[in-house]
């Protein structure tokens, strides 16, 4: 009797559950950049389609249990009734109550299976991008793929640029510790493990910027290891590709930027590569970060000003207003605005100068010269270079020419 009454209550809570989940949705932020329930591509959509019903079922079951317990509390509270019969259970009831959740989970399991294998496919890839994690930034390199106009490898960091509607496959690895690559709007996360190559499918439906965050704890500045995926239309992507492969343009003689170039050659090329940059004697300036940085690499700064962020996407290269302008641009206009890059009027000079002045102060990094014994004197992260203000002026002027 009691059991029947219990099951008859199944219907009631369903409406309760519906209203409950409405409440839950209403209680959420609008436009949270890393919202996992707002898929912007088919991979994330696949996950979302799977999790929505699971959450609903879980919610309903939760409400049923709560209702039963609540009823029992109300109904069987000690009101002086005699000590009840010492019954030890009803096996039939228990078996059925065991089988029902098992069946529900079996159904969920079937759909889960399919999604797992679909999300692991690699044979339908249209564009491959190598992604390498490092404390605390990501390096992207685009292998030669003639069908995309990539005839020599493009190397970049901070922002992953990809064409919309394209099945992109990230080949992830790491140079030091384990990181995890996660753009919630495009797919779930996948760890970048040193010594291994892991794959992650990404596909964006519309142009725009999708935010992400390293989600495997990777040491001191883990919280500051962010990433942004920039989706461009095919045409815009082709333009971006062409620009990335364009030859280096040295600043004009006599300008502040030219002086900045020599400061750069003195101070920065030990670690940072700018493809095509030549020394005064005409030789190529090849960075040797492996001699100075523990992980063996520092971000490649070629075409720096085509990116919107620097220092592992911790800081914006654009002032807030200019950045909002890009981020909130309509899909159609987005590509053009993004490809416009950073000019002097939009440059976030404050953060850039602070970074150049003393990098470890604005981003926690293992750059204390006193603590370098375990890394054979090599830094992890950018050290304080002790630049003078005028050097910083010159460098900023020079960096602005890297477009």
């Amino acid at each position, binding site marked *: 009797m009691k059991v029947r009454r219990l099951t008859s209550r199944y219907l009631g809570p369903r409406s309760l559950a519906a209203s409950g989940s409405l409440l839950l949705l209403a209680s959420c932020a609008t436009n949270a950049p890393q919202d996992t329930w707002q898929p912007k591509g088919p991979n994330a959509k696949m996950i979302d389609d799977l999790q929505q019903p699971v959450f609903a079922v879980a919610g309903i079951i939760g409400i049923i249990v709560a209702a039963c317990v609540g009823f029992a509390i109300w109904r069987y509270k000690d009101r002086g009734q005699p000590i009840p019969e010492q019954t030890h259970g009803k096996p039939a009831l228990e078996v059925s109550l065991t089988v029902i959740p098992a069946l529900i989970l079996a159904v969920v399991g079937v759909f889960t299976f399919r999604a797992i294998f679909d999300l692991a496919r*690699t*044979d339908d*890839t249209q564009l*491959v991008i*190598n992604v*390498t994690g490092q404390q605390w930034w990501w*390096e992207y*390199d*685009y*292998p*030669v793929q003639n069908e995309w106009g990539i005839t*020599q*490898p*493009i*190397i970049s960091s901070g922002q992953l640029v990809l064409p919309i509607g394209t099945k992109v*496959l990230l*080949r992830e*690895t790491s*140079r030091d510790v384990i990181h995890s690559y996660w753009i919630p709007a495009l797919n779930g996360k996948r760890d970048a*493990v*040193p*010594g*291994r*190559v*892991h*794959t992650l499918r990404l596909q964006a439906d519309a142009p725009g910027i999708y935010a992400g965050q390293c989600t495997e704890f990777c040491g001191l500045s883990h919280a500051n290891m962010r990433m942004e995926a920039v989706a461009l239309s095919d045409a815009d992507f082709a333009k971006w590709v062409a620009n990335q492969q364009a030859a280096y343009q040295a600043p004009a003689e006599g300008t502040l930027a030219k002086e900045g170039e020599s400061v750069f050659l003195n101070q920065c090329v030990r670690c940072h*590569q700018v*493809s095509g940059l030549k020394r005064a004697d005409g030789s*190529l300036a*090849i960075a*040797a*970060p*492996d001699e100075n940085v523990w*992980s*063996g*690499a520092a971000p*490649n700064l070629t075409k720096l000003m085509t990116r919107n962020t620097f220092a592992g996407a911790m800081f914006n290269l654009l002032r807030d207003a200019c950045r909002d302008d890009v981020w909130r641009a309509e899909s159609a206009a987005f590509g053009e605005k993004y490809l416009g890059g950073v000019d002097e009027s939009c440059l976030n000079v404050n953060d850039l100068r602070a970074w150049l002045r003393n990098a470890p102060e604005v981003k926690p990094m293992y750059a204390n010269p006193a603590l370098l014994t375990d890394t054979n004197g090599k830094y992890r992260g950018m050290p304080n270079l002790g630049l003078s203000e005028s050097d910083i002026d010159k460098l900023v002027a020079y960096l602005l020419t890297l477009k």
Partner: protein
Amino acid sequence: MFKTGSKLFLGLSGFAAFNLVAYVIFVERLAIGGVALSLVFAALTGLAAIVLLINEGDNERQPRDAALIGASLWPLTTVVGIVLLILGLIVAQIYFILGIVVVLAALAEWLVQAWSESASDDPAHNESARQRLLHPIEFPVIATLGLGVVIFSFSRIMLAISKSAGAVSFIVAASLVLLIGALFALRPALKPALVSGICVIGAVGIVAGGIAGAGIGLRSDLAEAAEEGHYLHRECGVEKSKYFDKKAMKNLSLRSNAAAIVELRDGKLSAIMVGFNTPQQLITASRANPVTFIFRNFDPTERRLVASLGNAMAGAPAAESDGEEADHAGKNETCTQLIPKGAEQALTIKYNKPTIAQTEPFTLTVPGVAGQSIEVLVP
């Protein structure tokens, strides 16, 4: 009070004092002899005091029966340790350390034995006290040493005789052990002396064989391999020795998630990479990061993959590798071993310099297969 002994020592110390004075007066002052005589004076006076104190041994107490102090191996062992110690001082530190260990162990055993013998008046109890203290240490140590000697001897035998003889002798030895064990099991009432005798003969035989084996040295192939170095093959060309580690090709290729699988099939070399639907002739590899290639040979002849490590503009090599680095004919190369058809082996390379820093590109080639080359592009 004053008896013969104390009188003797007092007299001697008096004589020493007299000598000291005479020496200082007649020979020289504050010389080594003076110092020594003072010490002798002190020592004799001390002895005199002791003899006075112990009343010259004229003690009516019932003496502890000195005969109770039974035989002991530890004086001899201590001396063995001392000899090792002095040999170590001269020859090699290992003997010195061994000597210290032996001396300390012997002294510890000696002390415990001495302590236990005076622990109570019951010899059985004393012996059990000693055993409770020392057996937990002695048995494992002795067993380890004994096993170590047997195993080491056996290994010397096995290393000295040929492979097939080794197998045969192993089978024979194992059968013997089984047989004798079975006999023991069938006849549990065998005399302990017989059993221990057989065991001793067996152990002595093995040790003797081991000594002989050590005298003979390694069999030829092992000697050759040892000389050459197990993994060290100087050239990426022809194998010098057929005794390289063939298992390496199986283990290393088990590594999952490699950057690329390089296949040699029908005389063509191509790279299979996840994400690329067709075999590639160009691999873009991340800089300053270990890249693992797996080489699979489908060619009927034994082949190896050779990676050129470039020629750095600076003096340092442009890449590091766990493979067999070679520097022949001025080339900076690394390679897998020769692997037969159907086998695979991994090769991990870390490219520290970009391709643009090279005058010639990084490549992967297979010697003997002309015109097939995969370029590794390092941005």
